[in-house]
């Protein structure tokens, strides 16, 4: 190994910058899962009968399911009975009406994460629905959105105030029986975000939610539902970081997107859950089901994700291209450093005619990280003239890491065109030396080269998010340069 490669190795040892625990008492139910716990969650949230019925159906189904084993991931068995399925900040009873009423410690936590809620919201014109553990504690810009007819609220609130919308759309993209983790989520999900953009409305601002895991041994089961009616447009940003701790924490979220005729949904994620330490101890297990449904003609759904965190990532944001001429897009940067394992990709299911999909996946492996791209492009018999372009690039930053590609294609219509390109490259001594010989130090050079590699994805992110993503990537791959 050359000295420069050793430098790269050293850079990769950057430690998680967001590792701290906020000292807030939690109202947590005892560990374990049974029908009573599901009922308790529903009661705590004062839910209507249809919600309880749906949760119970999911729970019963889940008890008959097996955890999937097909991913290129290795982790010790998860004891689902050792997890507590509900936790809420104690101040819940008198929920804050404004930011001034929010627990200052919570705000401090966001400050440490570089998310000064009030300032940020004002400066960037972003409405933030902050989720702390399982209960939402602050929502801003609600009035401005309400004027436009946009509903943006915690999921639990939507259940109370707009039950008809929840009943109509919940589970319509990811059914309660979909897969082991989504089914578990359906039974026990605590909260999340709900967005409804009515016909013809362009949402006047980017919507953003910051998720954060805090209570020990508390699985996080978020549920997000976004509906864009005919001709509506919405851009939603999701970002998250978690405090450092040793126990592995399970996270099994579900996101459902529904785009009706001529509607467009842009969903961007910067994910930075605690990845475990240098030796692979601790870290979040992230088993997420994200799916968008292009239900109407000419609709469009784009997923953009920057995944730098989690010990285990199992995530395949997908698009069902049902409407004729609908478009699905997936742009992804996934980093696996230290002992992180990422098995991520997408599914593009072409059902309607003239449907198009684009997949751009950039995987970065460093340390002992294992990064797998897993993607399915499926063209059904009726999908005349379907088009797919897939580009799948891997960047290796050490000799010990791994990059794997599992592209699946099922094409049942002869008019379809499906293209796949894949590259694997190693960050080279030549590139590093070239930059250094121009006066740029190793750390900046690595950041520059990695950012260049990810450029096609970053440019899909909203501007301020792109800057944040770039910074996050730098922090993730940074160490003390000696």
């Amino acid at each position, binding site marked *: 190994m050359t000295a420069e490669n050793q430098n790269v190795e050293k850079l990769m040892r950057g430690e998680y910058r967001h590792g701290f625990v906020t000292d807030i008492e939690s109202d947590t139910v005892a560990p374990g899962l049974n029908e009573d716990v599901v009922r308790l969650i529903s009661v705590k949230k004062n839910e209507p009968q249809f919600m309880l019925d749906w949760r119970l159906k999911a729970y019963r189904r889940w008890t008959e399911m097996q955890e999937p084993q097909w991913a290129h991931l290795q982790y010790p068995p998860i004891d689902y009975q050792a997890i507590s399925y509900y936790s809420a900040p104690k101040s819940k009873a008198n929920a804050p009406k404004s930011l001034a009423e929010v627990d200052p410690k919570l705000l401090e936590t966001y400050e440490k994460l570089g998310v000064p809620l009030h300032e940020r919201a004002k400066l960037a014109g972003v409405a933030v629905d902050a989720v702390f553990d399982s209960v939402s504690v602050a929502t801003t810009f609600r009035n401005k959105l309400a004027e436009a007819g946009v509903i943006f609220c915690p999921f639990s609130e939507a259940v109370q105030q707009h039950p008809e919308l929840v009943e109509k759309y919940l589970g319509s993209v990811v059914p309660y029986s979909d897969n082991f983790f989504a089914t578990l989520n359906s039974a026990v999900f605590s909260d999340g975000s709900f967005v409804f953009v009515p016909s013809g409305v362009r949402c006047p601002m980017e919507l953003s939610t910051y998720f954060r895991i805090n209570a020990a041994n508390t699985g996080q089961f978020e549920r997000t539902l976004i509906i864009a009616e005919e001709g509506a447009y919405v851009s939603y940003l999701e970002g998250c970081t978690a405090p450092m701790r040793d126990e592995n924490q399970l996270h099994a979220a579900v996101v459902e997107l529904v785009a009706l005729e001529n509607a467009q949904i842009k969903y961007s994620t910067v994910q930075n859950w605690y990845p475990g330490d240098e030796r692979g101890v601790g870290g979040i297990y992230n088993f997420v089901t994200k799916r968008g449904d292009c239900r109407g003609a000419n609709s469009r759904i784009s997923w953009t994700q920057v995944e730098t965190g989690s010990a285990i990532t199992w995530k395949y944001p997908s698009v069902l291209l049902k409407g004729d001429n609908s478009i699905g897009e997936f742009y992804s940067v996934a980093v696996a450093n230290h002992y992180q394992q990422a098995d991520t990709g997408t599914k593009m299911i072409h059902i309607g005619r003239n449907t198009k999909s684009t997949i751009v996946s950039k995987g970065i492996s460093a340390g002992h990280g294992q990064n797998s791209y897993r993607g399915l492009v499926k063209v059904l018999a009726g999908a005349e003239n379907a088009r797919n372009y897939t580009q799948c690039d891997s960047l290796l930053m050490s000799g010990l890491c791994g990059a794997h590609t599992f592209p699946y294609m099922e094409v049942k219509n002869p008019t379809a065109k499906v293209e796949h390109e894949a590259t694997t490259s190693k960050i080279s001594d030549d590139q590093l030396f070239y930059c250094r010989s*121009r006066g740029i130090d190793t750390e900046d050079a690595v950041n520059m080269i990695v950012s260049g590699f990810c450029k096609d994805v970053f440019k899909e992110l909203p501007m301020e998010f792109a800057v944040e993503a770039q910074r996050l990537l730098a922090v993730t791959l940074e160490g003390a340069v000696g």
Partner: protein
Amino acid sequence: MLSIKNLHARVEGREILKGLDLEVKAGEVHAIMGPNGSGKSTLVHILAGRDGYEVTAGSVTYLGMDLLSMPPEERARAGVFLAFQYPVEIPGVNNVYLLKAAYNAIRKQRGEPQMDAMDFLTVVKAKMQFMGIDPSFLNRAVNEGFSGGEKKRNEILQMLVLEPRLALLDETDSGLDIDALKIVAQGINKLRSPEHAMVMVTHYQRLLDYVQPDVVHVLADGRIIKSGDKQLALELERRGYDWVLAEAAA
């Protein structure tokens, strides 16, 4: 400015430089010629600080500093520049972005304020025009998809923007057609001044038709075996290296 004394160096255990001496004064242009495998590229790579070379004896002093103890980026910031024989492609990284980062890193070292993007663009555009570089260069990634000639012109453009005190040119003339060669030579000549020095590694006399060297050296088997003025290059062109090697062996 540059003083190399008794330099010995190995690559993968094999000795390539075997007691090389070289003195370069400010304002001088030196050409280093010699048969393939004589250690020419090794020399400039060692001077620029590339990894993979083991210096076993000797010293290199640059402006009074121990050059070999400095990492490559510090050498660059102190005014050493290497024009690569095979410039590297960096996909997704914009040419101007890299150059601006380099420029500001060097200014920072000198205690000068950082230049903003707009001012920097003005500087670069003027030099691009001088080097006959297409404006589309501004939107392209570092050397990505460049022809051989474009890559070499980009190296010289970088050199003109960064204005190094000591420029090392590693076979900058190789692979250039005559028009490109003239433009590259014009760029090199532009940097010539009493403050700047250059060491050019070349196989051919033709570059020296356009860039007149003050001193010509023959490097063979890891040592400089003969030095002279530009007439020496002409003689090498006519007679090859055998007579110099024979003379040295005698």
